[in-house]
């Protein structure tokens, strides 16, 4: 397993190199010139030239690329071009709010999704199964924006159960007051695709020989489902959850924007709007590294969950 882990870590280098080149290319040739945004209402060529010099975007591309590589190696991506805030501070302060929403969201949607998926897989072909699948298809085809607008209107405005938006200082206040509606929206959005996906995983397992054998031996249905089927279906489910994580962190911008949560996703969108390359660079590199690490972790977890799995 150690040799496997080291080999996979070694493979990170070319993958990350590809990401770096891609980000660098996209920003420099498609991303727009930040100097014009920062130069204000009446920029003159001299101001533009000074801003470009201060930002270092007047350097040859090779030099800029080398600076980017050094930043990755040192973990110091400098400061935001728009706000002068250190990128490390941005991550340190925005990660907490994002995780305050995402961790409960992921836990609740996974538990509910697995329970519902197991239930409908168990009664496959029944009216319940079909009804749930139709409902999931409908729910999945509705945009996240609709969920946000409707839930915010009904639960926050009409019923007044939650604040429309906001974020406080205390963790518990944020978790129990400001995050709840955002978590409900997140769960509502992710539940339908999760149920459909997990159902197929459970169905694969239910049709296996070992389930038939267990039934023939007189094992209870509860034990078959909760111990044997769940354990075997857990491998693809864990993979799915782990692979969602990095993307969720940066991709939760809609929820964060509508509910006023000062998280990473919202910061990424702001950075894109402002052509704030230091933040874009850092997010892209961190998400790439996180994805690779999570992939590796998922593979190692397979082995832990199912000892029959061979890592090669």
């Amino acid at each position, binding site marked *: 397993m150690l040799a496997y882990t080291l080999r996979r870590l070694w493979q990170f280098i070319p993958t990350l190199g590809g990401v770096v080149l891609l980000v660098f290319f996209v920003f420099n040739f498609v*991303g*727009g*010139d*930040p*100097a*014009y*945004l*920062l*130069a*204000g*209402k*009446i*920029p*003159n*060529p*001299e*101001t*533009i030239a*000074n*801003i470009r*010099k*201060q*930002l270092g975007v007047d350097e040859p591309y090779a030099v800029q690329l080398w600076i980017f590589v050094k930043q990755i190696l040192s973990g110091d991506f400098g*400061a935001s071009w*728009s*706000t*002068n*805030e250190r990128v490390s501070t*941005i991550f340190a*302060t925005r990660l907490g709010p994002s995780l305050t929403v995402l961790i409960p969201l992921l836990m609740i949607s996974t538990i509910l999704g697995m329970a519902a998926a197991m239930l409908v897989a168990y009664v496959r072909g029944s009216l319940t199964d079909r009804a749930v699948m139709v409902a999931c298809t409908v729910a999945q085809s509705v945009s996240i924006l609709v969920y946000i*607008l409707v839930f*915010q*209107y009904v639960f*926050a*405005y009409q019923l*007044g159960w939650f*604040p*429309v*938006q*906001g*974020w406080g*200082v205390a963790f518990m206040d944020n978790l129990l007051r400001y995050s709840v509606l955002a978590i409900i929206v997140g769960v509502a959005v992710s539940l339908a695709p999760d149920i459909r996906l997990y159902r197929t995983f459970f169905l694969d397992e239910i049709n296996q020989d070992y389930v038939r054998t267990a039934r023939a031996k007189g094992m209870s249905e509860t034990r078959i489902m909760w111990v044997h089927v769940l354990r075997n279906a857990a491998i693809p489910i864990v993979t799915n959850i782990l692979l969602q994580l990095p993307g969720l962190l940066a991709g939760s911008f809609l929820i964060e*924007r*509508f*509910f*006023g*949560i*000062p998280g990473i996703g*919202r*910061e990424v969108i*702001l950075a894109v*709007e402002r*052509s704030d390359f230091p933040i874009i660079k850092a997010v892209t590199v961190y998400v790439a590294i996180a994805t690779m690490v999570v992939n590796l972790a998922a593979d190692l977890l397979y082995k832990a969950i199912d000892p029959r799995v061979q890592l090669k």
Partner: protein
Amino acid sequence: MNTAARCLFVLLLAVALPAAAQNKILHITFQAAETGFDPVRVHDYYSGHVLEAVYDTLLSYDYLARPAKVVAGAAAMPEISADGKTYTFRIKKGITFTDDPAFKGKKRELTAQDFAYSIRRFFDPKNRSPYAFLFTGKIVGLDEFSARAKAGAKFDYDSPVAGLQTPDRYTLVIRLTQPDRDLPYVLAFPVTSAVAREVIEAYGEESPSHPVGTGPFYLKRYVRSSKIVLAANPGYRGKVWDFDPGDNPRFKQIAERMQGKRLPAIDGVEISIMEETQSRWLAFQRGETDIEYQLWEVAPTFMTDDGRLKPEFVRRGIQIDRTVDPEITYLYFNMQDKVGDTPNPFAGFTKERIALRRAVAMSYNIDDQIRIIRKGQAVRAQYPIPPGVVGHDPKYVSSIPYDPRAANALLERYSYKKGPDGYRRQPNGDALVLRYYSTPTERDRQFDELFKRGLDAIGIRLEIVKDRFPEMLKMEKQCRTMVRHAAWIADWPDGDNFMQLLYGPNTYESNNACYKSPEYDKRYTRSRTLPPGPERDRLYHEMTRIMETDTVWFLADSRIRNALQQPNVVGFTKHPVLHAEWLYLDLDPKPQY
């Protein structure tokens, strides 16, 4: 309930009630995230609100005077030399900065040196100030000082600048290279606020997160892009609400309730960044915010067609303050012969080119823009200087009407004939394509459709070029956009701020049409030497007619700002130039309605 519990309840009530009664916190929103609060570095609209609340400028504005009028700020009104080149400011004594560790436990008084230092900071290359243009070429010796730094020399804040003198602790003398009537406006602009050198040096690159000023509020808590909490500055110099309401009935009501109050009358301001209109609108309706004025998209929900608040909101005591923003939106034609490397068939001053531009202008239905895109919350702009700005002429009527039939006739007359595909060609038979630049946003898509509808009616082929906003800005400043919608909001309430947009030497800066007309420029140069008044207004009229004759722009609209307020808000009216009116209002804990 036992005795102990009762005692505890009474005790809690006794502690909580006075606190609640004293706690007058104004809750408002920003539509976009701020970028920071270092005055010279600010480059967004919303951060300017906080600057105004936290810092002091040399001059300020009368809250109720319309058009807006400059009054004393941290300094008395300046003494101006006979040649108009020397301004002497006397800083008010006893104004102190809010406490900060950078002052090492001592009270720090505001001095003339702070203002001189703050002006120099615009030219420090490290600050990348987007507002350096405010002083460029204006103050004796400052440009040379800046040029030395740009050439690589250390930016020496201690070396003297001839045009920035502080003969004593409270006197600032500014010597100009030539008379400049805009200087008082510039010095009332929040980016010219005074900062303390110790604070800037202590926080360095982090200065945007550590605003320390002498204004009515100080920054109490700050979560970037999310929450900005300001508290009333206990050491504020003791301004008293005293403004002349004139004949305006609404201003009279405000004056009745506010006259004589010590400012700031509120204890603080809590600003939430809410980008989404739905969130802001629901939050306001739920009473989570006190003032909301960025609700154009949902205006029909609360406004009647004749521009009044719907009865259900009136019954709830919601108040409205309705003003026209000091801005214009317009569509400009690039007047350079080539756009990039491509010949520009819409440029030039020949009769047929002017006719072509005029036909395009006459095909665009501005009333539809106001009705569909603005949801009725805008007024047609007839004159380049909007309402609320000195030089505006409410009687002026544009000479460019909406008339597609006449536009077609004009094109026929100048030999822009339709080809077999139904689209017109140039008189020499070449293809005629109007390249229109816009960003890939929902709002711009609406403009695209409206523009296309107008051009289809006169048979001109439209090609829409989409790009991101920064790239669009870059192309615009390099005169590489053929046609584009643009907007300009007043930096200060003087017509010059708008008329300079077509001044030839401002090409590559603010003159996006890259328009160079000797006749226009001659009048503009002359207007710069005149005080506001009939003679300058006459020149502005002539310049506007020149612009219309050449059809460089066609003016579209000025948006209406509907500021909704909860019943407890007292004394609020949107000032045309001031960003944050928080200093001048109060919150009534028991509103009557």
